[in-house]
C-alpha cells in the first residue's frame, strides 16, 4: 500500500461525509466561477478599451449633444489620428420592449477608429456606398436570426421624421464581429446622413465623438487641446479615455464589484467553516490510528503530508466539479445573453484563479488537523478510546 492509496482510503473512509464535503466545496466554487465570469463580462468594456482611444462628450452630461461643426474642428487638432462621431438612436424593433442598441455614425471613420471590427471587403464597399445600409453586430444578428440582405424597419423611441414616422428603413449590408470575443458585437450602426436628413427636430447635432491618438502618451495633450477648443462655448466638452468612460458608467449602476465580492466571500466563509470543522473531527476520530502509524515508523512529516494532501485532494475534487458545472452553465446561457451581456463566458484566467484558491483552501482547512496529527504523542494517542 503506497501513500496515495492510504490518502484515498482515509479520505473516503466515511462515504456520505466525503460526498457531502465534496458537494459543499463544489457549491462554493460554482458560485465563485459563475460570478467571476459575470463580473468579467461587466468589465469587458473597460478591458477591451484601446489605450489610445478617447471619447469626447458634452461636459454637462453624456446625454446632451453638441453641434455637428465640432466634428471637423476636432479632426483638425494636432495628434488626432482618426475621429468619428455617433448619435444614440433609442432603437427598438416592432415592440418598444425589443430594445436594440443602435447608433447613427459617420461610417468610414467609425470603422477606422474601431479597427478591431472585422467586415469582409465586399460588404464593406456596399456598406460605405449605399445610404440606407447598416452594419449589424454578430451577436445581435444571432439574437434575431437576421442575415445580410434583409430590410429592417428600425423604430426610435426618441426621434421622428418630418412626416411623423418613427421608423427608419435599413438594409443589412454587413455583419461585423471581432477576433477578441470580449469586444461587444451586440449593437448596430448606420449612416448619420441618412438619419440626420430625415429628422424632424434636432438636426445637425452629434451625440459624442470617438478618436484615436495613435499613441497613449499623447492622450492627455490631445484631450486638453480638444476641451480647450470648446471652453466657454454653449456646449463645453469633456474628453476622457474610453476605459475611464466605461468605468464611470459602470459605477453609476452601483457598486457591483463590492456586492459580488461580499457574496463570494460569504459563500467561501460558509464552506470554510463546514469543511474545516469536519476535517478536524475526521482526524480526531483517527487519533488512535495515527498513533499506530507512528508506532510503525511513519515519520511526523510524512503524517503531516498525508493529512494535508487529503484536504487538498478533497478541495480539488469538489472545486473542479464546481468549476466544470459553472463552465457548463455559463456556456448554456452565454449564447442567450449575448445581446445584453457580451463576453459572458468561462475563461482560463478564472479557471487558474479558481484552482489556486482550491489549493489554498485545502491547505487552510487541513493545516490545523495536520499539525495536530504530526505532534501527536504516541502514548496519548493509543490510550484514547
Amino acid at each position, binding site marked *: 500500500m503506497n501513500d496515495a492509496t492510504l490518502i484515498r482510503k482515509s479520505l473516503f473512509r466515511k462515504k456520505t461525509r466525503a460526498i457531502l464535503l465534496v458537494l459543499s466545496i463544489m*457549491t462554493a466554487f460554482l458560485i465563485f466561477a459563475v460570478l467571476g465570469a459575470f463580473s468579467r463580462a461587466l468589465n469587458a468594456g473597460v478591458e477591451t478599451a484601446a489605450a489610445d482611444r478617447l471619447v469626447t462628450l458634452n461636459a454637462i452630461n453624456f446625454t446632451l449633444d453638441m453641434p455637428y461643426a465640432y466634428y471637423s474642428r476636432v479632426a483638425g487638432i494636432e495628434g488626432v489620428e482618426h475621429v468619428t462621431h455617433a448619435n444614440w438612436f433609442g432603437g427598438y424593433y416592432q415592440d418598444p420592449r425589443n430594445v436594440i442598441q443602435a447608433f447613427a455614425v459617420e461610417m468610414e471613420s467609425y470603422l477606422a477608429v474601431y479597427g478591431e471590427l472585422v467586415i469582409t471587403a465586399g460588404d464593406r464597399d456596399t456598406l460605405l456606398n449605399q445610404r440606407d445600409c447598416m452594419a449589424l453586430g454578430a451577436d445581435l444578428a444571432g439574437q434575431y436570426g437576421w442575415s445580410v440582405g434583409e430590410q429592417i424597419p428600425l423604430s426610435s423611441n426618441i426621434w421622428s421624421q418630418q412626416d411623423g414616422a418613427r421608423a427608419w428603413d435599413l438594409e443589412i449590408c454587413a455583419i461585423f464581429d471581432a477576433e477578441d470575443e470580449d469586444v461587444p458585437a451586440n449593437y448596430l450602426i448606420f449612416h448619420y446622413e441618412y438619419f440626420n436628413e430625415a429628422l424632424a427636430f434636432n438636426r445637425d447635432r452629434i451625440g459624442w465623438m470617438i478618436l484615436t491618438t495613435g499613441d497613449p502618451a499623447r492622450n492627455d495633450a490631445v484631450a486638453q487641446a480638444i476641451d480647450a477648443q470648446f471652453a466657454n462655448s454653449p456646449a463645453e466638452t469633456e474628453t476622457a479615455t474610453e476605459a475611464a468612460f466605461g468605468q464611470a458608467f459602470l459605477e453609476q449602476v452601483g457598486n457591483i464589484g463590492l456586492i459580488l465580492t461580499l457574496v463570494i466571500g460569504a459563500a467561501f466563509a*460558509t464552506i470554510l467553516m463546514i469543511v474545516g470543522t469536519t476535517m478536524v473531527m475526521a482526524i480526531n476520530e483517527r487519533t488512535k490510528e495515527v498513533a499506530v502509524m507512528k508506532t510503525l515508523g511513519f515519520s511526523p512529516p510524512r503524517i503531516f503530508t498525508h493529512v494535508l494532501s487529503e484536504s487538498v485532494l478533497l478541495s480539488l475534487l469538489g472545486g473542479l466539479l464546481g468549476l466544470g458545472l459553472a463552465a457548463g452553465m455559463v456556456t448554456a446561457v452565454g449564447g442567450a445573453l449575448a445581446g445584453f451581456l457580451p463576453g459572458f463566458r468561462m475563461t482560463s484566467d478564472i479557471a487558474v484563479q479558481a484552482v489556486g484558491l482550491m489549493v489554498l483552501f485545502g491547505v487552510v482547512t487541513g493545516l490545523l488537523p495536520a499539525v495536530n496529527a504530526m505532534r501527536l504523542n504516541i502514548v496519548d494517542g493509543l490510550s484514547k478510546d
Partner: protein
Amino acid sequence: MLKQIGAVTMINLRSIPQRWGMSLATVLSVALVVGVLLGFLAMANGFRATVNGTGSDDVAVILSSGAQAELNSGLGRDSVRLIEVAPGIATDAAGDPVLSAELYVIADGRKRATGTDANLPLRGVGENAAALRDGFTLTEGRMFAPGSNELVVGEGVIREFAGFDLGETIRLGANEWRVVGVFSTGGSVFDSEVWADLGTIQNLYQRTGAVQSVRARLEDPAALDRLKAYLENEPRLDVEASSEREFFAASAGGTSDLLMFLGWPLAIVMAVGALAGAWNAMYASVDARTREIATLRAIGFAGFPAFVGTMAESLLLALIGGIVGAAATYLVFDGVSASTLGGGFTQIVFSFAVTPAAVIAGVTLALIVGAFGGFFPAIRAARVSILRAQG
C-alpha cells in the same frame, strides 16, 4: 411516548455544547446563507418600495408616443396647450387645469461615498409641480423664486451627493445655482431629484418652449380613459398618457426583478452547501452518541424518540442560524441608503428595507436546511442497534 420524546430531545439539546465546533459552524453557515438572501431581498424591496410609492392613480403622465421614459420624450408648446383643454383633468379654485409641464435634463452630481460623478435629474417645473406629488413637503428653506437660478433638492440627493446642502452654491454644467430649499415626498423617486424653474432650465439648456412630460391631476382615476380617448382622437397630438402608477411600475420592474432573480438562486445554491454542513454536524452528533442511544434503547426507549431528538437538534441549530442571519442583516442593512441607475438614465436613491416577509422567507429557508440536514442522521439514530451499547 411523549415523555420519551421529551427526555431524548432534552438530552440532545443539552449535549450540544459538547459538540460546539460543528454546531457553531452549522449555525454560522446557515446564518450566512440567510444573510445573503435577505441582503438581496432588502435591496429589491427597498428599490421597489421607492418606485411603487411614487405612483399615484389619479395623476396622469403624458409623453410623446413611444417614448416610454421622460428623457426620450419631447413635446412642443402647442401640444401642451392642447393637453390643457383635455377632458378629465381636475381644475383648481380659479378654474385652471391642475397640470405641470416639465423638462428634465441630466446633470452630474458627485457621490459622497465614492467621489465619482453620477447622473442626477435636474427637473424644470412650474408652480403646480408640488401639488402633483402626494406628500410633498418643504422640510427646510423655501421654494425657488420663478425665473431665478435657485434650486430645491430632494432629501435623497442630500444623502447621497455632496455639495447640495442648504445655502450652498453649486455649479452644474456651465451654470451656478443656489440651494434654497430641501423637499421630501416621503421616500419616493422624486426625492432623488433636483428642481428648478422651468423657464430658467429651458433658457440655460437651449430648449426654449420645449418640455418632455406633462403631469395632470385627474378628476378621478376613471377619468384616465376619457383623457386617453381625447388624446388619441386629436390629430394634432402624437402623445400617450398613462397613470403615474403604471408609468413607474413599468420603469422599475426590471431592476427589482433582476435583484430577486439573482438573490434567490444564489441563496439556494449556498443553502445546498449549508445543508451539507448541517448534515455532517448531525451525523457527527449521532455518531458521538451512538452508545448513549443504544443504552436508551436497551432500557426500553423506542426508536422514534431518537429520531425526534436528532431532528429537534438540527432544527434548533438552523433556527438559531436563521435568526442570527436575519438579525445581523437587519442591523447592518436596514435603512442603508444606496443608489443605482434607474429607468430614466438617472440615479434613483433608495433605502435597503428588511421586510417581515423577507425575514420569514429567510427563516423558512433556514428551517428547510435544518429539516433536510437532520432527516437522514435522525433515521440512523432511530435504527441504532441495541448491541452497540456494549461498544
